[in-house]
């Protein structure tokens, strides 16, 4: 494993986390307000996704014309294409938890270092959920 790949992954995680903080998505109240269309609706999250896709979509097209990544042997693009029960059932369960807690994996990890008890409890429960789903597979 080369040091450049590690440095790139570290910087990528940092940039990702800063983006989540700047966008306001580390605040679960903001996420729940996005989902509360008939209540205190805050459409900010749509702008987060829009801003991200506006960069990633053309960027991925550009990368698609390249031979491979800088510090690894090949691009690992996902290959699955079928719409199955696992995909949609999993997404439905994920969305229910996302609405209930206002957190998804990126934002909760980007804010857990701030030390709020609720975020630490959520991270522990989420990791338990990861392990349970892998065991069930």
């Amino acid at each position, binding site marked *: 494993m080369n040091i450049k790949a590690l440095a790139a992954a570290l910087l990528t*995680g940092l*940039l990702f986390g800063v983006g989540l903080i700047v*966008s306001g998505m580390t605040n679960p109240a903001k996420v729940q307000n996005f989902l509360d269309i008939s209540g205190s609706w805050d459409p900010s999250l749509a702008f987060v996704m829009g*801003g991200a896709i506006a960069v990633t979509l053309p960027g991925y097209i550009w990368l698609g014309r390249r031979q491979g990544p800088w510090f690894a042997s090949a691009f*690992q693009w996902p290959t699955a294409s079928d719409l199955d029960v696992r995909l949609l059932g999993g997404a439905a369960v994920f969305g229910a938890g996302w609405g209930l807690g206002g957190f998804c*994996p990126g934002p909760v990890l980007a804010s857990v270092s701030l030390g709020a008890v609720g975020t630490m409890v959520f991270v522990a429960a989420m990791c338990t959920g*990861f392990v349970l789903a892998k065991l069930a597979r």
Partner: protein
Amino acid sequence: METSFTPIASLVGGALIGLAALLMMASVGRIAGVSGIVSRLLPPRPEMSGMPTGIAFVLGLLLAAPLTVLATGYVPEVNVSSNLSVLVLAGVLVGFGSVLGSGCTSGHGVCGMSRLSVRSIAATLTFMATGVGVVYLMRHVL
């Protein structure tokens, strides 16, 4: 609780997230899906080949808030529920559902949507719908 609409900050933050997703693929050739990266580090059968870069990515994510506070003095607002049993249930559902459904907001919502993947578009619409439904039940029915 009310939060203010922040189109500019959210668009800029979103662009940084998009740039990070792009850098992940450009540098180590991987999708920047947080549930996938973290769950592959965990048992059973942790994935050894992606482990060093996975750990480095998670470390960067964890360092983002403390470094932001150190560099700017700005402490991000985190209005999290004080009901710990709700948070436990929510966390388990998020973890279980994202592994079962092969992705979360980052993997499907950002990376997959950017590849115009039909699977990711369907997953994103599904988790948005159940999220809206649960928040509606929680805030307006129960």
